[in-house]
Structures are given as C-alpha cells and as structure tokens.
C-alpha cells in the first residue's frame, strides 16, 4: 500500500489488518514513554489547506510517536498567499525530502492529484465532500473495540444523523461500515441527503425519533454551516427539532448504544445535550483512537507491507 486516498482503496482484509495494527499501537500509547523509533529518519509533511484541530494534531502526534520528523505547512501562513499553486507547493516540499504528505483540501480529489506530482506517499486527511478515510478507520476501530467484535460489524445498526450531503466523514464511514456488515440508516432532511444513494446499501429515516430506540450506534454529524448556502438549508431551529440529540432523546437510547461525533461539536445545534452526561459517549475515545489508527496507517505506508508474510528463522 503506497497511498491512502479513499476507503474504496482498502480491501476488507486491509481494513482489518490496519485495525489490528492500531491495537498494537494502542499499547504503545499506554506507556509512560509513548514513543518508538520505528519511523526514525522518515519525514511526514502535514499540508492543510483547510482548518483543522484534531485531524492535524492527531496525525502529527502519530508521526512523532513513531519518531518521524514532521513538517507543518499551513496555507494561511504560506506562499499560497503570494499565489503559489498547489503543484508548486507540493513539488517544493518534495524537493526538501518528504516521505509522506498528509493532505487536507477543500477540493474533492486534490490528494489524488497530488500523487501525480510526488514520489512520496499521500494520505488523504479530508478532501471536500469526498473522503476522510482515517476518520472511517478510527470510527470503525472505536465501534468494533467497544463491542468486542473485532473484525466485523455484522448485526450492528448504525444511524448516521445530520448533514450527510456535505460530509466526507459520512461517505467514508458508510462505505466502511456497510462493507464490514453493518446496517446503516441515514437520518437527514432530504435537502441534506446526497442525490444518488440507491447503490450505497443504506436505508433512510426522516427523524431521529424513528431510530433512536433501536440503534447500536448513534453517529451525529456536524452541521457544516460553512459549506451550506442559505437557500437550501432548513432553519436551524427546524433542523434541531427533528435531528438534534436532546436529553429526552438520549434517555431513549439502548443502554449499550454508543454516541459518536467526528467533532467539532456544534453545541445547541446537533448536540443539545452535554456529551459528558452521556454514558454511551465515545467522542473523546474517538480522538484517542485516532492517534493509534493514524500511527497504524503511517507505519503501514512508510514501514513496509504488513500483508507480507514473514520468512522463517530467528534473527
């Protein structure tokens, strides 16, 4: 595996292998000295053309725990402001000796494009409405490890609630969850559902109340106000009345049900309840797991192919 651009690039076997590698990385993260020399001498550039707190810091932390060197590029303080193109930016960084680019961009397909301009590995850290594969891996990791069913989501019902249309997280999660056997229900107003979902293998519901009693996982999406034009959007108050998690609704969740959110949370819009009051909340666990999962991805891309089998002999 050279790049990670989309969940569609991963076979089920590769997903499971990455999750197992993340288990291994989780042990490192519990140590008092949580740093290993595995990627010493490798350089990882985090190249973010769009704002991020957790994904950027998570990737950078993951790279540092594996002893890679990290270059941090932020469009806001770079020569992009002098008109430097994406291609020139990538080629310039490549010339400095980068082994992996971690890329976030507002345009779908930008990470794929970047693979044409560099020999380094490219990791998609979110491109437009398209894909966010490490988020899907960390969500899958969180769900499978919470339920103790490590290599499958068979028998689990997962409701993804909110702005599906503008959500790369939803696209990546839906692909990975369904391929691992979960039943996925999309809960959104029709204006916030993508137009062609017939082939996604999902069902839909028009209110959170229809599903809340029966789901194993309630996955709340962020209302992406920055991507939405005023015209096609229902009023926030109307949205909240059908799609927000409230104290009353939370009380109707099954005792074992998980509540997840990719962050950042819009308190008072999709989350009308304090997550710390929800016993099933895995929102902070998602953040913790994100580091282990990204360590697994970086190690797999930069350290060799884990699907290869070892030759015998003790050295």
């Amino acid at each position: 595996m050279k790049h990670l651009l989309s969940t569609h690039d991963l076979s089920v076997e590769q997903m499971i292998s990455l999750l197992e590698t993340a288990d291994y990385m989780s042990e490192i993260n519990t140590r008092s000295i949580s740093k290993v020399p595995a990627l010493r001498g490798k350089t990882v550039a985090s190249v973010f053309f769009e704002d991020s707190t957790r994904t950027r810091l998570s990737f950078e932390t993951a790279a540092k725990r594996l002893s890679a060197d990290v270059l941090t590029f932020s469009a806001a303080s770079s020569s992009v402001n002098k008109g430097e193109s994406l291609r020139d930016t990538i080629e310039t960084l490549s010339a400095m000796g980068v082994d992996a680019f971690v890329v976030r961009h507002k345009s779908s397909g930008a990470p794929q494009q970047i693979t044409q301009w560099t020999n380094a590995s490219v990791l998609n850290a979110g491109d437009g409405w398209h894909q966010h594969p490490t988020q899907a891996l960390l969500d899958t990791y969180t769900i499978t490890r919470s339920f103790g069913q490590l290599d499958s989501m068979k028998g689990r019902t997962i409701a993804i609630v909110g702005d599906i249309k503008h959500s790369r997280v939803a696209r990546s999660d839906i692909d990975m969850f369904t391929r691992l056997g979960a039943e996925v229900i999309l809960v959104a107003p029709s204006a916030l559902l993508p137009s062609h979902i017939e082939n996604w293998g999902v069902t839909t519901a028009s209110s959170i109340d229809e599903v809340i009693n029966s789901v194993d996982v309630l996955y709340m999406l962020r209302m992406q106000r920055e991507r939405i034009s005023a015209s096609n959007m229902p009023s926030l108050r109307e949205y909240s009345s059908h799609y927000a998690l409230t104290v009353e609704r939370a009380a109707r969740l099954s005792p074992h049900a998980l509540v997840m959110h990719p962050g950042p949370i819009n308190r008072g819009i999709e989350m009308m309840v304090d997550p710390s009051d929800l016993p099933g909340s895995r929102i902070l666990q998602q953040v913790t797991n994100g580091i282990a999962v990204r360590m697994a991805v970086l190690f797999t891309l930069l350290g060799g192919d884990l699907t290869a089998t070892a030759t015998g002999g003790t050295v």
Partner: protein
Amino acid sequence: MTTVSSQRSELLGEADIERAITRIAHEIIERNADLSVVVIIGMQTGGTWIAQRLRDAVSRIAPGNDLLLGAIDISMYRDDFSLRPRVLTAPTDITFDLTEKTVVLVDDVLFTGRTVRAALEALNDHGRPRAVQLAVMVDRGHRELPIRPDYVGKNIPTHFSDEVSVGPGGVAVMGLEKSQS
C-alpha cells in the same frame, strides 16, 4: 568429503529443554541474591514460553519467589526494517515499572545480537533497570554486536544460513550449507 544437502538435525529433545530450564533457573537464583527485584521478560514470540517456564522453575526451586513476568515486542525498534518483511506479532505486555529492577531477558535463539540490541532499547522505554541479564535456549554464534548471554541452554555452532528452530519439544537445525564430513 564435501556434500551439498538439506538436512535436519535434532540436537535437543524435550527432556533436554526441561533440564536446561531447570539449570538456568538455578543459575538465576545463585546469581541474584535478592530475587525480589528480579523480573523475567520474554521476547515476543519465541522467548515468551521459555520465560514462563523459567519463572515457574524459580518458584518451584525457591518457593515464595514468584517473579514478575512480562513480554516485550521489538518490531518498532529494529534497525533492519528495510531488510525484512514486517509482521506485527504480539504486543508488549509489561504492566510494571522496570526502574531499579534486574531484568532477565529471555529469547529462544541468540544469533547476530540485533534483536537483543533492539530489546535493550525497548526495555528503557519501560523504566531504567538496575541490570539486564540475558538468557537464551540456544547460542548459535555469528554475533555482529558486542552482546553476550549470561545464561545459555546450549551452544550450537551453525552455518550463517542454517535455520534453528526451538520449541518445547526440542531444538532442531536445518542446514542448507555445504558440510564437511
């Protein structure tokens, strides 16, 4: 006469392994006056069963001394990543601080010494041991680093390309080299 052949020699049997473990346990007890600071750490995965049996043997010979047992994986510490396929086996399992402990590091085969070098680095991430002693079932020679074992089940001269396999049932050497006979 020189022949080229693939041959497998059984060099130790199950009873020999048991005797070697008992002897090494006696040596550990003799060498460490204060057993309360001694911990046994097996290398994943070949050394862990030996570590477990060494710990049991120490408890049997010196009742009341149940040494702490751990396992260490060195996949993330190797210096030859690019030279071999990587498989993450079992993770490290050390639930105690190694600071001021005497660590008996246990592996099945001592060869170039690179695995032990990596293990010494890995151990330091779990505290600063007072001392580290090395116990191996087989020392097959061909060291590439200044590392020597403190406890050895059996010294077995080998060709560099031989394969040595160690298990509870015994030790075998698979030779693919020209051999003098």
